């Protein structure tokens, strides 16, 4: 039996390395093209590497306005989502009621609806209600699509705050919402941060929803503006596209790292998998 374990380990490492390489390869183009002023589709070492592509996209119309829109959209979505989710999670976590279980399973069922399928009817609805091209309406819709997951995550985090701490406050006459604000929320700060970032990342990367619901260029987030970059200018400036893509991706990568470091990778699943 001696020598078998190292061999198994070596084989596993080799297989994993090959898989990892396959996953990295499509990203190599993105990184190399961004610093290559003469980039095309080919992955190649830039002959005269420079930050010219980054400089070219660092303009108010191309980069800053879309990023500000992305920020408004994502932060707005996360705020609306978190406020609604915290309020909903509180009674679900604190009080026994025969409505709790059916409600939780109903919203879990809601997470199953394919959002791309809802976009056609949502567009129709927005036309009827004259909400097309409205930033707030888009924010409320985006908040709703991630709300079921956020309620589950928030409730799970809230369940881990011991009830005894609140009971003392109730004895002193504090109301449910007062104990929520003064006792429960401060104790689950990290969990709330996770939910916020989770929703923010989803909204930041969302292309289809703003693509359908926001019409004017002045309101479009980076996910949509980068697409017009790609499709409409005839000859595509690949290097600039890659540079823009990287600048647009950085905030999400940073936020993910922050959360993943704090709570392992479990955060993405705490809502999805736990019953």
């Amino acid at each position, binding site marked *: 039996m001696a020598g078998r374990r190292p061999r198994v380990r070596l084989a596993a490492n080799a297989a994993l390395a090959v898989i990892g390489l396959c996953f990295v390869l*499509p990203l190599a183009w993105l990184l190399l093209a961004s610093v290559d002023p003469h980039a095309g589709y080919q992955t190649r070492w830039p002959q005269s590497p420079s930050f010219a592509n980054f400089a070219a996209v660092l303009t108010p119309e191309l980069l800053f306005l879309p990023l500000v829109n992305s920020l408004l959209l994502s932060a707005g979505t996360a705020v609306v989502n978190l406020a609604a989710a915290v309020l909903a999670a509180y009674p679900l976590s604190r009080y026994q009621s025969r409505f709790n279980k059916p409600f939780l399973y109903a919203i879990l069922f809601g997470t*199953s609806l394919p959002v791309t399928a809802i976009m056609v009817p949502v567009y129709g609805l927005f036309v009827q209600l004259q909400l097309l091209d409205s930033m707030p309406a888009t924010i409320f819709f985006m908040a709703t699509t991630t709300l079921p997951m956020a309620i589950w995550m928030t409730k799970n985090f809230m369940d881990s705050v011991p009830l005894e701490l609140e009971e003392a406050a109730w004895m002193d006459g504090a109301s449910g919402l007062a104990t929520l604000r003064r006792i429960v929320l401060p104790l689950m700060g990290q969990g709330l941060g996770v939910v916020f970032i989770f929703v923010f990342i989803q909204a930041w990367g969302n*292309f289809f929803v703003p693509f359908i619901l926001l019409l004017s260029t002045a309101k479009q987030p980076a996910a949509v503006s980068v697409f017009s970059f790609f499709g409409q200018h005839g000859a595509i400036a690949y290097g600039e596209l890659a540079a823009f893509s990287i600048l647009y991706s950085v905030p999400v990568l940073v936020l993910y790292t922050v959360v993943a470091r704090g709570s392992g990778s479990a955060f993405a699943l705490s809502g999805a998998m736990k019953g």
Partner: protein
Amino acid sequence: MPVPDSPYRGSLRRRFRLLPVAPSILLLLLFMLAPVAWSFYASFTDVALSGKAALNPQWIGLDNYARMLTDSVFPLSAWLTVVFVAVSAILGQNALGLLIALLMTKSGGATESFVGTAVIASWVLPEIVAAFAAYAYFSQDGTLNQLLGLLGVHGANWLYAFPMAAVILANVWRGTAFSMLVYRAALAQVPRDISEAALMDGARGWQRLAFITLPIIRGSIATNLMLVTLQTLAVFTLIWVMTAGGPSNASTTLPVLAYQEAFKLGDIGYGTAIASVLILIGMVFGTVYVRLLRRANQ
């Protein structure tokens, strides 16, 4: 709402406790349930983006659904959706995610963290950026053909010759991280002595994998299959950027078809009919998913 705990308070007060749930319910009713209901309703009308049918849509009964069956694109599109979900999600993401997670129990150190980061990076990147990268990778003189060129093989123009293969591989690349994370968490719960012996341990190891490890994590396998199916059913951006459903509908899955009918051709009625079919499929999988979780919780 003082002292909410007393059993002698009226049931009215107990109802008020649920009041904070109201904003969530309102949002879900307005932006989730209403569109779904409207989708089913509009699919029985000829409502359009412009023209007479935009102002005054007529009830046309099952015409839209009958049209699906005779339409040349819908059956193809339904089939492509099945292929896309079955191959990229169930076979690809699910099996590859499990394989990576199993290999990781045998690995460790630098390789493990390198692979974990690589797999997760393509998942965390904004969808549109991942789609551009995949587009460049599979294009005529893209990375894949450059690699094949190194081996002396002249690669095809993947996005035109084999669009489904390209979008399927791209979706595996993009989505495997989710399954990997699910299975890593599940395998971490398997008793250590069993998991250690599970893989690459000769015939006995494979038997243990099949008869011990997999049965232990079968709950995770079932929920993961449901979730990756639902996620893949909804994929739009990746396909739209890579092939736009083409060439000549060769990669038009149902979300792409619904988009084209509703927004490119302005036929909202037919578009909602296709969307309604997708929503129904989602509901079927959603019901199974909720039942699985309920049973797991009991």
